[in-house]
């Protein structure tokens, strides 16, 4: 991809990033300095992503990754594909902003790397999303992560349930989501909602998936090992809903009309992935998942409560950037990558964000449409 072609993408990517950040808002927590560690991770991503994607490209193509990631409980999905433009390009935005907002301050080598990264992302995204789209934003707010053959198979596994049973199942899944937020330092990284898959008149399937749950195997993060152990390391819950409209976004989050769809759940199926195989699970497994979630939440909370701010800042940034392990896992090179924050990040950005909660470039995302018209949030790449 030439720099000119990359520059045609940048206004569109900027719009999607602007939309996602401004509609979600900036999240904070007493437990983690969320905005601060996100900013650290953006700068770290600017340092590391090119080398990661270059190594991945030596073993596969983004097209293959996109096609083969359309499946239940995939590590690569709408949000983790969005990590490429979101983290890297926001880190780049911060660097350029700090250099008087002049895109020519980006070294030529980095400009070429940026074009490479955007090319990788475009080829990956357009192979993943139906119709060659690049994001959920472009796909009429549908996050269709599965092919029809998988939908047909899932339909066969759905069992009828009452709304009361649906409410119980939702509570367990939500308890697991809270665990997921904790282990990921407030990030949504383990979570993926996708759909809606139309299966009948006024009937849809939607999925709620959770990956990298601690089941006693290799901990996802250095802090993830708890006394409590889940029965499986991942779970997908497919809900059959009647009379519900569902919308999705590029953080793989679902919103519904009506807002509370519990009474509209008519059926459910549970699945887990073991390597290449997806297996149905009995609903009885939810009790063990619920016990795990409650215990693991308390264990992780007590663990983090003893850490100081610097430890939590570094953990959050590490966790965010480890999101790129989904790419290296695809080609089996994750253990060959040093995932620690770079020396530059540790020396420059960790100290800065210990004292500052907020990057000065972030307000660029909140400017008016008029201001962004000729100056998209994520800056064009300078062409000499």
């Amino acid at each position, binding site marked *: 991809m030439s720099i000119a072609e990359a520059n045609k993408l940048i206004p569109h990517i900027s719009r999607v990033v602007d939309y996602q950040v401004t*509609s979600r*808002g900036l999240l904070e*927590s007493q*437990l*983690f300095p969320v905005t601060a560690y996100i900013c650290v991770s953006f700068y770290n991503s600017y340092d590391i992503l090119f080398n990661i994607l270059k190594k991945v490209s030596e073993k596969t193509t983004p097209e293959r990754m996109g096609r083969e990631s359309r499946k239940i409980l995939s590590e690569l999905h709408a949000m983790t594909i969005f990590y490429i433009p979101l983290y890297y390009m926001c880190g780049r935005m911060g660097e350029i902003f700090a250099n008087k907002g002049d895109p020519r301050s980006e070294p030529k080598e980095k400009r070429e790397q940026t074009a490479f990264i955007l090319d990788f992302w475009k080829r990956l995204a357009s192979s993943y999303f139906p119709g060659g789209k690049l994001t959920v934003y472009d796909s009429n707010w549908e996050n269709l992560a599965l092919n029809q053959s998988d939908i047909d198979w899932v339909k066969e596994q759905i069992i009828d349930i009452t709304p009361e049973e649906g409410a119980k199942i939702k509570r367990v899944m939500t308890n697991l989501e809270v665990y997921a937020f904790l282990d990921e330092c*407030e990030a949504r990284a383990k979570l993926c909602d996708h759909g809606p898959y139309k299966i009948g008149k006024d009937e849809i399937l939607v999925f709620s998936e959770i990956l990298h749950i601690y089941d006693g195997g290799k901990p996802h993060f250095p802090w993830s090992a708890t006394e409590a152990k889940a029965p499986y390391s991942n779970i997908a819950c497919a809900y059959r809903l009647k009379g519900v409209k569902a919308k999705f976004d590029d953080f793989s989050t679902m*919103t519904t009309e009506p807002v*509370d769809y519990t009474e509209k759940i008519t059926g459910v199926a549970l699945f887990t992935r073991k390597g290449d195989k997806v297996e149905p699970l009995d609903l009885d497994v939810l009790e063990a998942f619920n016990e795990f979630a409650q215990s693991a939440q*308390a264990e992780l909370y007590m663990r983090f409560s003893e850490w100081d701010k610097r430890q939590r800042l570094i953990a959050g940034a590490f966790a965010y950037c480890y999101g790129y392990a989904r790419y290296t896992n695809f080609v089996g090179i994750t253990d060959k990558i040093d995932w620690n924050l770079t020396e530059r990040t540790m020396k420059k950005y960790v100290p800065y964000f210990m004292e500052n909660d907020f990057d000065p470039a972030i307000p660029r995302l909140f400017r008016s449409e008029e201001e962004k018209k000729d100056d998209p949030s994520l800056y064009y790449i300078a062409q000499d």
Partner: protein
Amino acid sequence: MSYKKIAEGMISCEKNAEGQLVVIKTVQDVVSLLKSGPQGKIPVVQDAGTTTLAPVLSRVSGVVCLSGGLGAHLAIVTREFGIPGLMGTEIRYNGELNGKKAKIVALGGSKGELYILEE
């Protein structure tokens, strides 16, 4: 004794809740709440993330949050738990909130109010 309205906001699900207010300012406040028992409590928090209240969220009656909107993690999770999360609210009360008996009232249209019982 009567209930006095002290705040309004966006509500994450159309349900009412009653309970005792617990003002959360630090992680240690949450640890204390976890140990003393979160049932029947309504935490009041500043932050719209999920992790502040993570180990107690499934057991409290409702949540009051002084920031964030319906897209915030806390709003999403309270909605999924089926408990009301009153988001982006500003409390108009100068007295001590801790321990006050309170209720969150859903008004429809994703709007809600917070009342406290005053002597």
